[in-house]
């Protein structure tokens, strides 16, 4: 019966109209490469369980964990149960729901560079699909070391696991063929050349419509709200330009050090790990022009224009526009912490930056002359990611010395934690004197909506299953951001080769080196304390 219904044209389901879940993904199997890794435990499985709990996954859905380590279905299920119990947004686990969820979870041992492993994966996948009545839709999640991206995709192609969809110019077949989509984790390349090479290798097997390059910052509710805030409210967009905006600050501050990621991070650094992807993506959403429609390509076209308009920093002006630094021993919440070079798996002579601050310009009509200050660092005193739009002062100050309390208006969009938006403005202090003090008007998701927003991975996995790539990064966006960032890396490499490295140091628990303060103070401005 299943085969006959799968072969016949599938009529649309009229009962979805008006339901909270108007769009529910089609039944599918999801394969997670890197199933024994930290991301799978902390984020992916908890997200999948929470989606199941919220009934946002299709009733028929299978998850296959794939990794080198020998394990069994049962052992893997138990491992994932513990992970979900600790990290899922929807806790405590519902035992019956978990039992039903776990019965569709499987484990497949294999090597990423071994074609035979993929032949066995295909056999197992087909068997599971047959047993569960799945129509052959497949989502492959690459949560592996970046060096495995290309071999995994090549092997997926050779095993016939990821056939491309019909070309955009051809009439869609009825019924539509099953989909095969691939989510690729960051980092996508380590510089422009490697990103281009990776795109090339992936495009040998997959169509761009099958590729979902994930940047989990884009799945955060406040980042999505940025589009609503700008384009669904009439009052902000008219002042969102160089006539009214003095400058923009984007901060991505972490309290953690490199933890267990020393080996990876020492080859990456903050510019690759945070700025090239998260901060430039967030900046492109904050700076882009209104898209013609809220669909994947319209939004990504506008983001791309911003990335292409980034003014290259001339090599001779690098030090006055970019500051890099490394944390030294210091104190975090009353505890002494090590310096970066003393962290496990970090070279004691490492010159990798754990902090970077930049001044950049977007050469467009809207943003001409408006500096964007970006900074990202580890071992900062507070975990905070925010965009701050700092407006110009009023053109004429009426209040003379009495107006000393006036500060520029600041619109701050907090991405994490405590997602929300705040607007600072000056207000008269009560009393007979004309004294002015800054006050803040705040919107917080938790307070206003009474619920915490869903985890970014929940939203992004769901979007991928639905085939919506709006919140994923396109190949040309990745290359455009690498193109800008790689110039800085090349200049740093030349400095290091010449023995002139300008790597500064800052104590753990501080807001970065003095050089970062000097960078912005040279323009008569100061960093915000988020």
């Amino acid at each position, binding site marked *: 019966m299943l085969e006959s219904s799968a072969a016949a044209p599938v*009529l649309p389901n009229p009962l979805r109209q008006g339901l909270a879940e108007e769009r529910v993904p089609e039944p599918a199997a999801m394969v997670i490469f890197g199933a024994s890794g930290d991301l799978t435990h902390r984020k992916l499985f908890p997200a999948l369980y929470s989606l199941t709990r919220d009934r946002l996954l299709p009733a028929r859905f299978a998850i296959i964990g794939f990794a080198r380590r020998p394990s069994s279905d049962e052992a893997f299920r138990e491992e994932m149960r513990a992970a979900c119990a600790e990290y899922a947004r929807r806790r405590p686990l519902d035992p019956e729901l978990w039992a039903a969820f776990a019965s569709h979870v499987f484990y497949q041992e294999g090597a990423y560079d071994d074609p035979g492993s993929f032949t066995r994966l295909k056999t197992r996948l087909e068997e599971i699909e047959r047993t569960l009545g799945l129509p052959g839709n497949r989502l492959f999640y690459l949560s592996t070391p970046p060096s495995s991206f290309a071999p995994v995709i090549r092997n997926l192609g050779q095993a016939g696991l990821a056939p491309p969809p019909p070309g955009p110019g051809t009439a869609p077949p009825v019924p539509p063929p099953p989909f095969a989509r691939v989510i690729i984790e960051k980092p996508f390349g380590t510089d422009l050349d490697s990103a281009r090479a990776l795109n090339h290798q992936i495009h040998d097997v997959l169509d761009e419509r099958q590729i979902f390059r994930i940047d989990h910052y884009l799945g955060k509710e406040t980042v999505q709200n940025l589009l609503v805030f700008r384009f669904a409210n009439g009052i902000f967009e008219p002042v969102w330009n160089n006539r009214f905006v003095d400058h923009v600050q984007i901060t991505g501050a972490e309290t953690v050090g490199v933890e267990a990621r020393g080996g990876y991070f020492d080859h990456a650094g903050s510019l690759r790990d945070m700025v090239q992807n998260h901060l430039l993506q967030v900046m492109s959403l904050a700076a882009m022009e209104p898209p013609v429609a809220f669909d994947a390509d319209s939004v990504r076209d506008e983001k791309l224009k911003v990335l292409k308009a980034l003014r290259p920093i001339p090599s001779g002006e690098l030090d006055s526009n970019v500051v890099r630094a490394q944390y030294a021993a210091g104190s975090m919440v009353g505890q002494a912490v090590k310096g970066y070079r003393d962290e496990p798996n970090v070279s004691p002579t490492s010159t990798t930056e754990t902090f970077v601050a930049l001044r950049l310009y977007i050469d467009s009509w809207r943003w001409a002359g408006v500096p964007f200050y970006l900074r990202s660092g580890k071992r900062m005193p507070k975990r905070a990611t925010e965009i701050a739009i700092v407006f110009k002062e009023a053109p004429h100050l009426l209040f003379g010395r009495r107006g000393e309390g006036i500060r520029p208006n600041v619109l701050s969009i907090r991405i994490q934690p405590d997602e929300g938006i705040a607007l600072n403005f000056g207000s008269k202090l009560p009393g007979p004197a004309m004294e002015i003090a800054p006050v803040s008007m705040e919107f917080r998701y938790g307070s206003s909506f009474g619920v915490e927003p869903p985890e970014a991975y929940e939203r992004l996995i769901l979007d991928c299953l639905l085939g919506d790539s709006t919140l994923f990064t396109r190949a040309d966006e990745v290359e455009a951001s690498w193109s800008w960032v790689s110039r800085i890396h090349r200049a740093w490499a030349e400095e290091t080769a010449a023995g002139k490295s300008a790597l500064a140091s800052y104590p753990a628990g501080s807001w970065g080196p003095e050089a970062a303060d000097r960078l912005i103070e040279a323009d008569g401005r100061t960093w915000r304390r988020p």
Partner: protein
Amino acid sequence: MSPPPPPPHVDLERFARGEPIAVEIGAIERELATLWKSASATGAPAAEGAVSRAALWNVIIPAHGRENLAATKHLVDEIAPALPTRAITLCLDDAPAATEGEVQASIESNVASQPGGTRMVYSEEITLVGPRGAEAHFGAIVRGLGIPGVPTATFWLDPALPASLLERELLPATDRLVLDTGGCFTPHQLEELQRLVEAARPIPVADLGWLRLGGLRSLFAGLFDPPVGGGPLARATRLEVSHLAGCDASALLVVSWLGTLLGWRPLESGTTPDGGVRFAFARGDAAAGPPLEAHLVPAEGACGKSGILALEIYAGDERYAIHRTALDKTALLTPVAPPKPVTLDSPSDAELAVAALGRRGRDPLFARCLAFAQTLWALEPASGFSPR
């Protein structure tokens, strides 16, 4: 002579405990502001003692009698942590001792601590109690007490209230009307609600009963997601809705939901030997097809306030069904996969009320289904509905 007012700190302590404080009607706003200011200034350091006054909605909930008022205030308390509101509860007191012509007012706080306890969000509640006939005063008072610029929702949940209070006094100030078809004792009471929906146009109307059926509708709809698709629905010959006796209104809404979305045209109704009701339908697309019938079957079992125990649709010899196996558990039955147990949430009235003020509270499908249900109960003979 009235007793002297208590000193301000006594009021503040009672306010912080969430107890009501009697206030003069004309001074409600000033009293609230004074209390908030005092609460913010007391005790903890500035950062911890800061108190936000947040409100996304003005919520008006009338009730009839002190007993219903207590239930209403309980609902408001449960809504508060999830949705900051200014709640204005109105009570028409039918106690013989109620003083004629006098409206009494009290204010209360609802407190929700933020994670970590450093910040708090308060919602505020104003209660107005008056004797029979006081409804004529409520409209003006409510219009004065709503927070400006914040939308107003009126929860009309008590069928014993005079319709004039809603239609004359409250609807002009209402941006969303919230009803509960789950409180209908007979399908004929749906007719009164249908009249209110018409009177409220173009104000969006949310129904707690409709939202209560949301989980069940979602699960049932899921049976027809790909690869099954809508084919079996197009070929359906029989629908069976098992419901608790007295929950015919919910069952009618379920039939109406399917009838509306699948384009069925009601032809006739009758009673069945099992004490239920039978409806015959024509298919909307005029295509020749087998006869189509829906049965409402009274039954026993745990099913929560929605009153629905099972929902089955037959397409030839194929059967697609949801059966409750416990209060919050169901089994999904289809010809294409083994039976599957699924958890079915039973949201509280407060959770439904919060949903009613969100996007799901603007579902235009509800009004269409209610109109469809009216067509069904207007069919003759329609005497088979079970009494509660």
